[in-house]
């Protein structure tokens, strides 16, 4: 998987021309890059230096530090990872929309689902979990992708589970109403087939709304997580990278337990298990890396 940093987010604050913040020295920038790469696996190339330095200056200012040295010391020593989370947030893109990172949906219907079908009798369940599902774009995208592009979809009982810690996001997801921006990557044919105009936006059709199981889940709550079992595919994108190390280890363990042996988990574009856990085996599907819970136990 690529480890280059993603796009500049136009919504983040832009430094003004009269910004008096101290520039970051090349040595300090190198130290920062080493640290960030060690922690996240994300490496900033020369072409991203301007972006990364500005975001770094934003964080130094936002945390009220005099300069890089003080900020870096705080960052390295903090327990609980709050500033690290903010920093990762500042360096990556968080926007959700339909068909985001669709190369993984391609891998799902071209490789993962056929692989499951090859070993499973028709009529049996296939369980897919979107976690965190936020306002629903991801699970609805999965549903559309399967209906549109997996010829064997009708032969199996496909359960799509979708969970988030945020009950308001879940309420929005169940309502299924979205603005233009959320649909900007959606092929027009799909927009036509699965959405109807609704106020200033669009509403997803009843059939899809009724087929996603939206539940409130806190990944850190082991008791709730234990109820999710024998999952075939988990989409866990852009969540784990924001956890502190201790919480993240716990989350990875519970996700592993929820997958059936041979099941796969998909992370976000900037995320890699290489900084999280060695429980999963990287599997190549085309040019996409997904992570598999081994079939044989050790």
């Amino acid at each position, binding site marked *: 998987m690529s*480890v280059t940093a993603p796009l500049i987010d136009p919504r983040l604050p832009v430094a003004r021309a009269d910004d008096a913040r101290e520039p970051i020295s090349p040595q300090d920038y190198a130290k920062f890059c080493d640290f960030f*790469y060690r922690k996240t*696996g994300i490496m900033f190339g020369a072409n991203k230096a301007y972006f990364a330095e500005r975001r770094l200056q934003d964080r130094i200012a936002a945390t009220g530090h005099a300069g890089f040295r003080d900020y870096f010391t705080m960052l390295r020593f903090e327990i609980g990872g709050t500033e690290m989370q903010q920093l990762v947030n500042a360096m990556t893109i968080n926007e959700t929309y339909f068909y985001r990172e669709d190369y993984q949906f391609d891998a799902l219907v071209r490789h993962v689902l056929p692989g499951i079908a090859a070993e499973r009798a028709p009529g049996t369940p296939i369980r897919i979990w979107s976690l965190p599902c936020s306002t629903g774009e991801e699970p609805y995208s999965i549903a559309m992708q399967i209906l549109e592009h997996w010829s064997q979809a009708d032969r199996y009982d496909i359960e799509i589970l979708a969970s988030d810690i945020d009950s308001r996001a879940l309420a929005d997801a169940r309502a299924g109403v979205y603005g233009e921006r959320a649909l900007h990557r959606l092929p027009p044919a799909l927009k036509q087939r699965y959405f109807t105009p609704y106020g200033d936006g669009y509403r997803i059709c009843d059939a899809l709304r009724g087929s996603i199981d939206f539940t409130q889940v806190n990944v850190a709550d082991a008791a709730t997580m234990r109820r999710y079992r024998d999952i075939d595919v988990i989409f866990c994108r852009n969540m784990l990278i924001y956890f502190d190390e201790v919480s993240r280890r716990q989350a990875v363990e519970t996700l592993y337990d929820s997958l059936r042996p041979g099941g796969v988990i998909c992370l976000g574009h900037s995320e*890699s298990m*290489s900084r999280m856990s*060695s429980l999963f*085996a*990287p599997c190549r599907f085309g040019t*996409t*890396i997904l992570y598999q819970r081994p079939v044989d136990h050790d």
Partner: protein
Amino acid sequence: MTEPHSHGKRILVVDDGMTTRLYYRSVFEAAGFVVEEAANGLEGLERALVEPFDLLVVDVNMPKMDGYTLIERLRGDAAGQAVPIVTISTEAGTSDAERALEAGANLYLIKPAAPAALRHYAALMTGVAA
């Protein structure tokens, strides 16, 4: 940065030591190679599976996945059959060398590998004129 006369051949250096990775980077860039890095065996395997490289230089002892396992898994994938692989280890025993070669490495070197030797083997294994 790569030398102006770079032939564009790409080496992935997989080692958990930052200084070691930069050391190899300086050695290979001086010979015109483009160098990418991975900080552990799992990251190395991920990158080697989906990105094109002309040579892998792989440390044996690494967190998350050791060099032997990286090589075995890579050779087990259609995308990882052809790429030449050099393993570098502190272990001088023949059983370690055998293990690396059985896993699918092409060459086993003992640390510390002299810069001249590294460049020589890299040129040889990537088909660059010496």
